[in-house]
């Protein structure tokens, strides 16, 4: 077990190196640099900036150096925990990303918990009352849930809330808590706002999970040990919850590995549509404005979250199911 975890942990730095190169190449790829798009922005607002000033800025930001020097400098700074300076905001990236990263993780985890709370009971109920009205309704809802892009769902919910109830369901905080210090009240306010985006974010996952749970449980329900337990006179619910549900659970856990990372990257779109203070919209803006160090840092953070998510689930699975460790 320890060997398995160590093996995985050893791979981590290697993956990070590969990803840092990949990310850097991607943010460096667009023609021109931040200054060209900066000049374009200035020009569109009617002002301009002298050629020597541009050169000075270019030198100051190190944009005139060869790519590999820029890369090494960036990685060097990263290793010292310095995420660099945002070219656009003229503020340290760590400051820009800080709280938003926290909210990104909170939103994803919240959505994750919500998904499981809804999907597992729904799946169990569907399996036990197979072909009942509720089962059919859940099946239809699941199919539609999987088929709906989550930004669509966000749009529809926002539209309904706005057009019929006159409320706007954007953001994660009420105005009075926007810039406030963290307190219990602020946290409760966050929870009150976070459930809707979390639901939107988790809908496809919930649908898929319900289907998997239902199918797994249906497989288990026909096995002889269930019949034996029933013959011994156990009440139906105790019986189902105590044995087959536990067995049906295992394959679900194995999906956490790809599900959690999916939530991190999926939150990008929902956050943009619903105007949430998440690193997603920040990344989008940085990409459009070619604010390469900010974009690079955020992309690398996404990679980190993905890797850590996968790692967690690998470990969890190895712990639950010893057979996995053999292949590791």
């Amino acid at each position, binding site marked *: 077990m320890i060997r398995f975890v160590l093996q995985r942990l050893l791979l981590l730095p290697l993956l990070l190196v590969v990803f840092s190169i990949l990310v850097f190449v991607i*943010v460096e790829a*667009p023609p021109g640099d931040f200054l060209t798009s900066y000049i374009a922005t200035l020009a569109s607002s009617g002002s301009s900036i002298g050629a020597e000033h541009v050169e000075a800025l270019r030198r100051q930001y190190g944009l005139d150096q060869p790519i590999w020097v820029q890369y090494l400098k960036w990685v060097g700074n990263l290793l010292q925990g310095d995420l660099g300076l945002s070219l656009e905001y003229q503020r340290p990236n760590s400051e820009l990303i800080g709280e938003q990263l926290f909210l990104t993780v909170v939103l994803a985890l919240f959505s994750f918990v919500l998904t499981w709370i809804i999907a597992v009971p729904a799946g169990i109920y569907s399996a036990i009352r197979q072909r009942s009205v509720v089962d059919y309704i859940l099946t239809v809802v699941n199919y539609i849930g*999987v*088929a709906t892009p989550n930004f669509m769902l966000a749009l529809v919910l926002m*539209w309904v809330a*706005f*057009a019929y109830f006159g409320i706007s369901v954007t953001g994660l905080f009420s105005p009075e808590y926007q810039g406030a210090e963290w307190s219990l009240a602020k946290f409760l306010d966050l929870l009150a706002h976070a459930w809707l985006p979390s639901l939107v974010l988790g809908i496809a996952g919930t649908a898929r999970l319900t289907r998997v749970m239902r199918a797994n449980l249906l497989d288990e329900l026909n096995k002889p040990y269930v019949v034996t337990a029933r013959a011994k006179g156990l009440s139906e619910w105790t019986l189902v919850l105590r044995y087959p549900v536990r067995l049906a659970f295992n394959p679900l856990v194995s999906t956490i590995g790809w599900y959690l990372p999916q939530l991190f990257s999926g939150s990008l779109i929902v956050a943009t*549509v619903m105007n949430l203070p998440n690193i997603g919209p920040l990344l989008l803006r940085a990409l459009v404005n070619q604010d390469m160090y900010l974009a690079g840092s955020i992309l690398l953070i996404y990679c980190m979250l*993905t*890797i850590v998510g996968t790692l967690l689930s690998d470990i969890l699975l190895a712990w639950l199911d010893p057979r996995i460790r053999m292949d590791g």
Partner: protein
Amino acid sequence: MAGAAAEMSAAEERISVASNWTLVWWRFRKHKLALASAAVLAVLYAIVLCPDFFSTQDPERTDARQAFIPIQSIHFLDDGKWAPWVPAAVGKRNPVTLRMEWGTDPARKIRIGFFVDGPEYRFLGLVRAKVRLVGPLDPEQRIFLLGSDRMGRDQWSRIMHGTQTSMTIGLVAVTLSVVLGIVLGGISGYFGGWIDQVIQRLIEILQSVPTIPIWLALSAALPRDWTPTQVFFAITVILSLIGWTTLGREVRGRFLALREEDFVLAAELAGCSRWRIIVRHMVPTFLSHIIATSSLAIPVMIINETSLSFLGLGIRPPAISWGVLLQEAQNIQTLALAPWLLLPGLLVIVAVLAFNLVGDGLRDASDPYSK
């Protein structure tokens, strides 16, 4: 009794001589829902072939005075007789908000017809044609079956053209993924050794990439001055770059299992080249499975394209796709005013649903010998 037995054996005979594909078809046919979905997909791909025939007018035709016209529904009967028409939209400016408010005037009917001549277009880009599925009898009139957008463009026609782009992207991206998956997965599984190692590590790395952020970054990297066609192909490549890994893994697994089979050994002894063994003997055994898997991958691609375009980083106007159309619905105030702008999203859901159902049906049918 003897008759029944003869009938039985005739049915059995039919099954035992049926080809693999016939068996798959028989099995697929039993899924009514999948069959209905296949019909929906057939309609959608008919639109892909010729969106102009299905649209009522040029999707780019703008008219600022006809912005945000609500849906004009078709009435088939007039005085109990067959004479399809749509009510004309009458706009009145609200004196307080200065906003145009549209109502219908049931007295003014715009006569429409099916298979009428409209503005000229080129069928499949080659043949000049005029006939359109539905359109106003008077070519001077414009009808808005699904409303109009902020620039007075006809949403019905735009949706038809958007369908062409979005459905094609899904298909092409998946085809590309399948080719990559089969070739790389096949090489990996057939040759084994260090080649296998390299490809497996590559797949692992690609699979731990956070897809949506990386897609966004890649699309943002596309030069602004590219033509819509170039952007289209670039987006397709970007989408399939990560999409092939799942399939690659599956194909490799099958190859590993098949490599040990007797018929492969037999083919090798008969002197077949490696390429021929792969293409003629191994691939056909799991082709139906691949088709099922890829039909489940298309909807994912469609959702991804729509999301990218919706965020402004996928297909860009003037090209039209479902995502581009949904960009119009981004603003909640606009949406409250013109909820029909969400309709392209409904089409996304319908298409994805249809693909999923057909995919499920195919997956069950792909192994006709299983119970």
